[in-house]
């Protein structure tokens, strides 16, 4: 029996461009564990784009430009496109620096999927997942040099995305799943 419990976010996952309940997805995938392993789409259609980036900081700009073009096709407003660019950039940088730990032989795999007036973004690395999510950065403590100036990337992702889920398993690694709705709730 599968002991892995669905998270709240998994209650609204995508399959075949439609929002599905966890129960439906478990029927499709067999278990929550397999469902998580299938977070990265294996197929392509006009609503799914996949990219592979070298593990080099700076190449997140390729994902930003691609996602911006993709979102324009679905009439996302300019401010939401900027939000999308920031979340994919920060997720890719985290994957390169922390997930793949800067390894030059690693890569970052990214998928965008449009569904129900939202874009789901999957950013996968070949790392072991996020062991500890840092608390929100406290600028007063950082400017007083009590805390180091870190943690802004995940903080911005959590602020800008409508849904965020860490540590989903993918082949040879883990991914971050984010959803940005066309209209900010």
């Amino acid at each position, binding site marked *: 029996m599968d002991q892995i419990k669905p998270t709240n976010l998994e209650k609204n996952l995508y399959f075949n461009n439609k929002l599905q309940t966890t129960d439906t997805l478990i029927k499709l995938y067999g278990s929550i564990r397999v469902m998580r392993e299938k977070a990265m789409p294996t197929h392509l259609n006009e609503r799914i784009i996949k990219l592979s980036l070298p593990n*080099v*900081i*700076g*190449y*997140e*700009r390729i994902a*930003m430009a691609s996602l911006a073009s993709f979102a324009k096709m679905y009439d996302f407003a300019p*401010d939401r496109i*900027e*939000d999308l660019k*920031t979340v994919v*950039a*920060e997720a890719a*940088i985290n994957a390169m620096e922390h997930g793949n730990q800067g390894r030059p032989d690693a890569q970052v795999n990214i998928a965008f999927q449009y569904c129900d007036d939202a874009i789901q973004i999957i950013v996968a690395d070949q790392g072991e997942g996020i062991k500890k999510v840092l608390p929100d*950065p*406290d*600028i*007063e403590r*950082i*400017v*007083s*040099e009590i805390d180091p*100036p*870190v943690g*802004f*990337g995940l*903080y*911005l992702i959590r*602020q800008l995305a409508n849904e965020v889920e860490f540590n989903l398993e993918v082949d040879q690694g883990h991914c971050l799943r984010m959803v940005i709705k066309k209209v900010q709730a």
Partner: protein
Amino acid sequence: MKENTDIKLQQMGNATIMDIRGDITSYSESILKAAFRQTLNQDARKIILKIEKFAYINSGGIALIIQILYQVKENKQIAAIAGLSEHFKKIFDMVGITKFAKIYDTVEEALEGLKG
């Protein structure tokens, strides 16, 4: 990958404008810190960070700007930011930068705002 950042310093009275051309990321560290050190040599009491509207600023760049603001506070200078895009005005507000440096649309408005 090398960052394409260029900084020109311009003195206006007791304010120094750090005119940052290009993006601000962790790759901008050496050029940004060197430019800030120059403002200290000029004994600037007011610092205006002028950032291009289309600049890409990532979390590494945000961390650098916060480190500059720490130095500003240590040196008893005051800082303002001018020229950001609406998106990065929102981001700077989210991370709390606006608690330490007010954001203005233009350098002229920033100079006026720092007069008070």
